[in-house]
């Protein structure tokens, strides 16, 4: 299939755009593959792409129960950053950010990665100290980070009210290389590129069971029949527990719902990503002009993909408290996604108790930024049957061993951070 380019846009435009072909084939499942990836979100598609591009494993199927990219990948607030504190997370997310930085070219698809900067505001001494600890951790690991004082925040994002709120802004931790990417395009781009390397992307194919013999995976049962493979990788986000239950084990995951919101389209107003430190609120402006914003969890397990008013009230009031000019703007739409929350807030990219079954899961509300990194490490783990150095700590067993990766210190599921 001819790639995408400015030249093609030009020639197709002259021909009435009649020559475009599907960005990925609507593949029907074959009876067997070398690797099956379950879940056609960003993580599953990226896993397939890197299996093909990094490890030469192209006899791969991505099985998606609905449409690709309609899970959390298609409904998140698109913040990309690598500002973590614990070295295990820090290094992983930075690897992911570096992959983002070259993604357009690797995929031949513009995911509209926009490194407009991410500021996490802090409002008191304790928060400032935590920001310093985190930012210094980043810097010592070679990751860009800057500390802003109030004037710095004002200069970078003048619309933020630094003085008058209940919790005046003291400063912010800025990662300039952080930013946003166009969520749907990430799924489509990985699909496009994986497909170009021979991966079968099978939509409307729900995995309903696991075929396990002698403790080893043999394949999966689906709504479109049995499909065999000696290796299966799970990348199903909030549905992870359902899949592992099919494989006969429980995992440390609770599925919670997180809402997001978009405002009406506006002329450029907020030029970076800003996160309120005194309540749950973060906002950025989409390339279409809508303010995309969100906050914390609704606070109870849900697979329902829809949220509730009290959480929205908090998000909106935190928003106006941070940026009083938002009051007269309007919310256009709200929705929710279902996230796989872990006891310590950090993910799993690992082998499982079943031989040949792997997973990337537990991304909580921060897995969009991890998409390329997760796919890359998951692919490595599947290809080598062993984790890469970058995901060696992200195991299911870490709680048995007492080696939690708890960035915020909230403790198991609290609730659910």
């Amino acid at each position, binding site marked *: 299939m001819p790639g995408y380019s400015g030249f093609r846009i030009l020639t197709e435009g002259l021909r009435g755009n009649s020559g475009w072909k599907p960005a990925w084939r609507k593949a029907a499942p074959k009876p067997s593959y070398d690797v099956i990836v379950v879940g056609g979100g960003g993580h599953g598609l990226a896993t397939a792409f890197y299996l093909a591009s990094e490890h030469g494993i192209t006899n791969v199927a991505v099985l998606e129960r609905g449409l690709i990219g309609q899970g959390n990948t298609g409904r998140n607030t698109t913040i990309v950053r690598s500002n973590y504190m614990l070295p295990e997370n820090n290094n992983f997310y930075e690897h992911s950010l570096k992959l983002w930085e070259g993604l357009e070219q690797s995929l031949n698809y513009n995911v509209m990665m926009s490194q407009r900067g991410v500021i996490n505001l802090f409002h008191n001494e304790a928060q400032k100290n935590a920001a310093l600890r985190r930012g210094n951790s980043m810097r010592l690991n070679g990751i860009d980070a800057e500390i802003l004082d109030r004037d710095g925040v004002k200069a970078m994002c003048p619309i933020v009210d630094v003085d008058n709120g209940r919790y005046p802004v003291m400063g912010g931790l800025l990662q300039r290389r952080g930013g946003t990417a166009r969520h749907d395009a990430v799924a489509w781009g990985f699909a496009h590129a994986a497909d170009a390397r021979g991966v079968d992307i099978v939509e409307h194919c729900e995995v309903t069971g696991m075929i396990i013999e002698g403790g080893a995976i043999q394949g999966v049962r689906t709504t479109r029949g049995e499909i065999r493979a000696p290796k299966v990788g799970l990348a199903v986000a909030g549905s992870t527990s359902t899949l592992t239950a099919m494989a006969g084990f*429980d995992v*440390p995951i*609770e599925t919670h719902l997180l809402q997001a919101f978009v405002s009406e389209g506006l002329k450029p107003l907020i030029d970076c990503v800003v996160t309120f430190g005194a309540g749950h609120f973060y906002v950025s402006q989409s390339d279409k002009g809508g303010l995309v914003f969100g906050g914390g969890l609704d606070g109870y397990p849900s*697979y*329902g993909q829809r949220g509730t008013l009290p959480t929205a009230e908090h998000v909106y009031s935190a928003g106006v408290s941070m940026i009083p000019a938002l009051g007269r703007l309007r919310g256009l739409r709200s929705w929710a996604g279902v996230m796989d929350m872990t006891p310590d807030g950090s993910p799993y990219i690992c082998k499982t108790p079943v031989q040949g079954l792997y997973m990337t899961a537990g991304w909580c509300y921060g897995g969009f930024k991890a998409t390329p990194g997760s796919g890359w490490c998951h692919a490595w783990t599947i290809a080598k049957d062993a984790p890469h150095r970058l995901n060696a700590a992200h195991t299911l067993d870490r709680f048995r061993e007492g080696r939690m990766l708890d960035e915020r210190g909230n403790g*198991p599921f609290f*609730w659910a951070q």
Partner: protein
Amino acid sequence: MLRIPCPHCGARDEVEFIYRGDATVTRPGPDGDVGAFHDYLYLRRNPRGWQVEWWQHNGGCRTFLKVLRHTVTHEVRAVATATETLEVPGA
């Protein structure tokens, strides 16, 4: 918005309650080992469907309640006090 019928206070908005985990796991006794405590604290059925959950009516009568709730429809079918048991339909 969830409305949970507290057996003491009547139906109240979700903001009055705090979710506090799966109510079917119970704390191991004094003999519990690391494995038992690990499973109690970390492993979750996390069902897509009916689940019996702990909720505290902290904005009202402060009691811990067991709530049978569907994790897709959010329907609340039964509420019991801490010492009562609730069965998951079909389980």
